[in-house]
């Protein structure tokens, strides 16, 4: 280390001279690692089929990135882990019972249409994994909403289909949810461990929180987006959660169900598609939370995290412009032109 430092001091070059240890690929692989607990829990609850779907999504994403870059003579950047991450996130957002061609179509849409056609990593307007999922949800509305009942055994033979907690909440109300899960405490613990129907990677809140804590500790994500996202959603759920009465909703059910945690910690915080100014990030998070709850409570879909994040993605550049940081030493513009 010492020797390297000395050599560094003797190098004559243009600035910057101090470089961070962090690289894109290091951050991307860390995010992949942070998703590992949730992946394991998904595999545990939904069986080997879920693992196959994740694997197919990842392989399809990496392959389409490789083939696209190869055919356009671009620099091959599959090793940086971003395509792997897109595939993994897409797979985690799919129901465990989808046919195997679905993750392939989704990964293709995510990587080629959303990411590479816009110029590759860093130039995409929207979160690739979410566009992949939106593409699939709109293309195959039936297949994408068949939910399997989770089983604690890894190998299972008779997979029952059921509705997600949010689906029940939307169709039949909170009373039915309580009837299914027993009391409040069981409901919360089931939601917390992930023993519920849903997409492969979104169910286990505890596993997602462990991954998120790792990312926060390493400083790869900041608290601004997740806190404002979840805070706004909780507030909305509390105020408007029950029909006909204000301030009686159950924010915990809303926070722990659906893709809320996965979205808030792992997808809204995507570096490329969220604002880079802190104040702007808070506004971005508030927008995401508001739109999510608006779709959940008033919209046609039971879950709104995906569309909320995608809609806010479009506003990122405008938010960044609105909260532009003051340039050091620059004076305020003098508005005298009106005279």
């Amino acid at each position, binding site marked *: 280390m010492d020797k390297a430092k000395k050599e560094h001091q003797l190098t004559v070059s243009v600035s910057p001279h101090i470089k961070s240890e962090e690289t894109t690929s290091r951050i991307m692989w860390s995010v992949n690692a942070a998703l590992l607990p949730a992946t394991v829990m998904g595999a545990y609850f939904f069986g080997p089929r879920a693992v196959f779907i994740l694997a197919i999504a990842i392989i399809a994403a990496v392959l389409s990135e490789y083939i696209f870059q190869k055919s*356009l*003579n*671009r620099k091959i950047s599959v090793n940086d882990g971003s395509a792997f991450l897109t595939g993994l996130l897409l797979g985690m957002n799919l129901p465990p019972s989808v046919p195997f061609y679905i993750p392939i*179509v989704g990964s293709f849409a995510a990587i080629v*249409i959303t990411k590479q*056609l*816009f*110029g*590759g990593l860093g*130039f995409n307007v929207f979160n690739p994994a979410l566009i992949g999922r939106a*593409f699939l949800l*709109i*293309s*195959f*509305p039936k*297949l994408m909403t068949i939910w399997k009942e989770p089983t604690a055994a890894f190998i299972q033979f008779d997979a029952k289909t059921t509705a997600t907690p949010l689906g029940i909440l939307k169709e039949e109300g909170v009373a039915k949810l309580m009837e299914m899960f027993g009391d409040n405490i069981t409901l919360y613990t089931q939601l917390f461990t992930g023993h519920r129907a849903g997409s492969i990677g979104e169910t286990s809140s505890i596993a997602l929180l462990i991954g998120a804590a790792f990312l926060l500790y390493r400083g790869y994500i900041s608290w601004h987006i997740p806190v404002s996202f979840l805070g706004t959603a909780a507030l909305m759920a509390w105020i408007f959660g029950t029909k006909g009465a204000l301030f009686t909703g159950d924010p915990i059910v809303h926070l722990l169900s659906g893709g809320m945690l996965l979205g808030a910690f792992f997808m809204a915080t995507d570096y490329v598609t969220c604002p880079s100014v802190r104040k702007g990030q808070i506004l971005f998070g508030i927008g995401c939370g508001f739109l999510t709850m608006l779709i959940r409570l008033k919209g046609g879909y039971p879950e709104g995290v995906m569309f909320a994040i995608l809609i806010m993605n479009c506003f990122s550049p405008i938010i960044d412009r609105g909260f532009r940081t003051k340039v050091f030493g620059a004076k305020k513009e003098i508005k005298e032109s009106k005279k």
Partner: protein
Amino acid sequence: MAQANKVNYRELITNGIVKENTIFKLALSLCPSIAVTNNLKNGVLMGVAVLFVQVMVNITISLMRTVIHPKVRLPIFMLVISGWVTVTDLSMAAAVPDVYKQMGLYIQLIVAFASILARAEMFASKNKIAPSMADGIGMGIGFLFALTVISFFRELIGRGSLWGMPIINAKPLLIMILPAGGFFAVGILMALFNWIDVKYLKTKTGGHEESTHECKTTLLTPAGD
């Protein structure tokens, strides 16, 4: 007037199809290219309607070009265009009533097509009848070609059928017949068209003296305009 003898009709026609293709090159009239192309039949009929209107408008304007006062030329162009659109509209309503029910509104919208007014203004009002007709045919065929290609892929992928007949026996990608898929199809085919043009046809894009090599590099740079 000696110039008139040298008119290259072949160039006039291919100009509209490749070099100044309304949709793929000029990116004009994108509204119908997304709205009516979710099946091949509608796409082709729309293209034919536009071809007819474009040719007839060009001929009429070219005939009238010496009597139109420059100050009122735009209202007169619009009158001529809406006249021919009405003719098309009513004939389609009579000939193909079932298709007309689906896309009648868009036939009437041909009035507002920038491409038709632009050709009337830029070409037909300054040229003789025969070249104007050739230009109209080229532009119309270019538009018809673009709409046919877009609707071909959208119906094939989005419904698994062509001209209403089932072709592929697999679950179709529903998004392709929805408006969002229209944007995908138009964008990707536009990129493909330009790529083929740069690579094989090598038409020089309007006015700029670019070498094909330069075109190639701009195409390959990430996030190039």
